């Protein structure tokens, strides 16, 4: 069948079973929008800013394991998308971004709305393409979807000049794709896995440290099985929350900068550390030299060889997909006779319980002023611990991560690697579209929410009943905390004046707004939002303690044992 380039683009998306495209039209993509208009299978979500289109597609992907798709025009459309693309890249999220480009003949002429999109995005995509011939569209899009979701996932951008979208050719969608230059390893090396299992069984102070890779691989069930089989303690990074049930006794909480005392001490003093789909990020291991002071053997499972021995030297590298490698580990364990040493393990758990008894997550609640931690605990109660929770970036993000106990994967969506303020609402939009019946809460701050506040309009248009929980501390709280602790309490530009009345603002967009001032009203307001207003978007504006800080804390660049547990430690 002979089709135009634009029709081919849409046919490819149909072939890939794409349900939603998040986007914003403009001159260079008019033909694509025209083709979109003339079909019903692929639905388009019109956002109010291209950054939000990419974030929403990213949130859709994070909550489903499917590829998120965004569509933007050339020039400013593409540059607006860059923050979204970089955010997805830093957290290895599978996405395809289609951008319009000026006509082929105009490229390089400083044409209207021309930017070198492929050049600008090159460092923040897994791969990108400029399509130069209508006959290449189908294979290029096929490749883009294939690259996005295989190996270490990531965003792939396809830049399509306008003339290519109205040129015609015969359409045929390739069934398979193979690229001689791209062959990600899936199966882990048998010998290495054997060595790892041996080491794990001989361990006296074992620790399991897992991250976003387990979520991306959809391997939470395997991880849980292996961890229970061994009876070892486990910690999940900020990107890995929900991969192991947080309410289970073997779970020690998150590691790192705002991780728990018990998780960090167990990481530090372990003699065998099993790292799975986690990349020893600087927010986790702030000071590799300090970490190396304690002797331990490290096993590292990752699909990307470059994640292994990058910041922390590894003893047993295993390149492969988490799912396959964990399956093989479980198989070997179950097939063998050997079991962990019960005496050593009992002594290790005794030590861990001792660390745990410091109760580092306790905070002083108040009758008069709303504590942000309290809001999250109530949110957990009211939603039965099973909502999809998105967050923005700042203190509220850390409190959500610490106090909403995620028992299942793909319930926690946040920007870990790039730390992009403004992702919260678009992530919630993507997640709500993917899961229409589910409770979706966006935990945010009064600064972050304003970075994409315009999306309240999109939420109205597409009737997305997300619940926005604004922990309003009238501060760039995370910045204020650092200034208080490390910059002599000089609060340079971290106070925000002239905030809007968020409840009224939400109302003006046609939503429900509720302002909450007293601790006693927190639970009631949340219940009202999730029951009475089940089908509405509710903006809950919680006036929280302005001076609350996130603890525990390991200062940037410091060792895991140098923790500030509470304000008393200062």
């Amino acid at each position, binding site marked *: 069948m002979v089709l135009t380039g634009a029709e081919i683009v849409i046919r490819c998306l149909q072939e890939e079973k794409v349900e939603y495209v998040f986007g914003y039209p403009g001159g260079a993509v008019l033909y694509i929008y025209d083709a979109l208009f003339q079909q019903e299978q692929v639905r388009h979500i019109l956002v109010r800013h291209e950054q939000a289109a990419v974030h929403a597609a990213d949130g859709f992907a994070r909550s489903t394991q499917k590829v998120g798709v965004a569509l933007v025009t050339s020039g400013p459309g593409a540059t607006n998308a860059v923050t979204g693309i970089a955010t997805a890249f830093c957290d290895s999220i599978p996405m395809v971004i289609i951008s319009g480009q000026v006509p082929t003949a105009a490229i390089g002429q400083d044409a209207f709305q021309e930017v070198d999109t492929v050049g600008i995005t*090159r460092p923040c995509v897994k791969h990108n393409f400029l399509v130069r011939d209508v006959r290449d569209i189908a294979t290029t899009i096929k490749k883009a979807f294939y690259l996005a979701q295989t190996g270490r996932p990531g965003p792939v951008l396809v830049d399509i000049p306008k003339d290519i979208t109205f040129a015609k050719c015969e359409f045929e969608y390739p069934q398979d794709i193979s*690229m001689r*230059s791209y062959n990600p390893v899936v199966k882990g090396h048998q010998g290495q896995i054997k060595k790892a299992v041996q080491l794990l069984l001989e361990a006296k102070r074992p620790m399991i440290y897992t991250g976003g890779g387990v979520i991306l691989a959809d391997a939470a069930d395997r991880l849980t099985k292996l961890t229970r089989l061994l009876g070892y303690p486990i910690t999940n990074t900020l990107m890995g929350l929900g991969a192991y049930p947080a309410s289970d006794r073997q779970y020690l909480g998150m590691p790192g900068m705002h991780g728990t005392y018990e998780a960090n001490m167990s990481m530090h003093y372990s003699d065998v550390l099993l790292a799975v789909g986690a990349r020893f990020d600087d927010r986790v291991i702030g000071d590799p030299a300090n970490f190396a002071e304690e002797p331990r053997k490290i096993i590292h499972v990752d699909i990307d*060889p470059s994640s292994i021995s990058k910041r922390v030297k590894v003893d047993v590298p295993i390149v492969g997909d988490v799912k396959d490698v964990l399956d093989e580990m479980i198989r070997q364990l179950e097939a063998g006779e050997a079991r962990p040493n019960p005496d050593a393990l009992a002594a290790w758990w005794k030590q861990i319980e001792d660390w745990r008894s410091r109760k580092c997550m306790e905070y002083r609640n108040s009758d008069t002023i709303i504590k942000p931690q309290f809001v999250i605990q109530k949110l957990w109660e009211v939603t039965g611990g099973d909502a999809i929770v998105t967050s923005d970036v700042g203190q509220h993000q850390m409190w959500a991560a610490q106090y909403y106990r995620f028992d299942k994967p793909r319930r926690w969506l946040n920007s870990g690697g790039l730390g992009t303020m403004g992702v919260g609402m678009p992530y919630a939009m993507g997640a709500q579209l993917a899961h229409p019946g589910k409770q979706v809460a966006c935990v945010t701050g009064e600064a972050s929410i304003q970075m994409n506040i315009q999306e309240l309009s999109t939420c109205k248009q597409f009737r997305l009943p997300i619940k926005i929980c604004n922990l309003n501390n009238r501060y760039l709280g995370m910045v204020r905390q650092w200034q208080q602790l490390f910059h002599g309490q000089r609060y340079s530009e971290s106070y925000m004046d002239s905030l809007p009345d968020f409840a009224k603002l939400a109302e003006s967009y046609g939503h429900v707004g509720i302002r909450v001032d007293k601790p006693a009203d927190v639970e009631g307001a949340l219940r009202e939002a999730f029951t009475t207003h089940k089908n509405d978007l509710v903006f809950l504006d919680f006036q929280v303690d302005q001076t609350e800080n996130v603890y525990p804390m390991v200062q940037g660049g410091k060792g895991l044992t140098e923790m500030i547990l509470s304000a008393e430690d200062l």
Partner: protein
Amino acid sequence: MRHVISLLIENEAGALSRVSGLFSARGYNIESLTVAPTEDASMSRMTIVTTGSDEIIEQITKQLNKLVEVVKVVDISEAAHIERELMLIKLRATGKDREEIKRTADIFRARIIDVTDTSYVIELTGNQSKLDAFIGAIDTGLILETVRSGVCGIGRGDRVLKL
């Protein structure tokens, strides 16, 4: 430590900038980089001379391998290999200097490939140190310009970098 990394890469527009962009974004050194298509025109071969600790070189190889268009990467300096570089050098050649330059060129097995009343262009291939030595042997005042290709490298014997 100095390393010579050879790689095969799809001969696509922008492939070179992916490689050079990787080096600048991650702060790796490039001493030289050469690239040209191979006998199979769909593929190019690059030789990159870089320096760094073992850990950095390990990351460089891994990061290069991660580029979607890179087909194969080998650190050829890990074993016996040959390096060659081409230099064209233009010298002021008048009076007594003409004979002297010719003698030096002969010693280095260089060839004079362009002659005017006042200048020579000399062509010389060899490893980096041979080219450096030649420059060292010439009176700097006579050098009008030099152009060097950067290093090309290949493994000795059975070691073959092929698809």
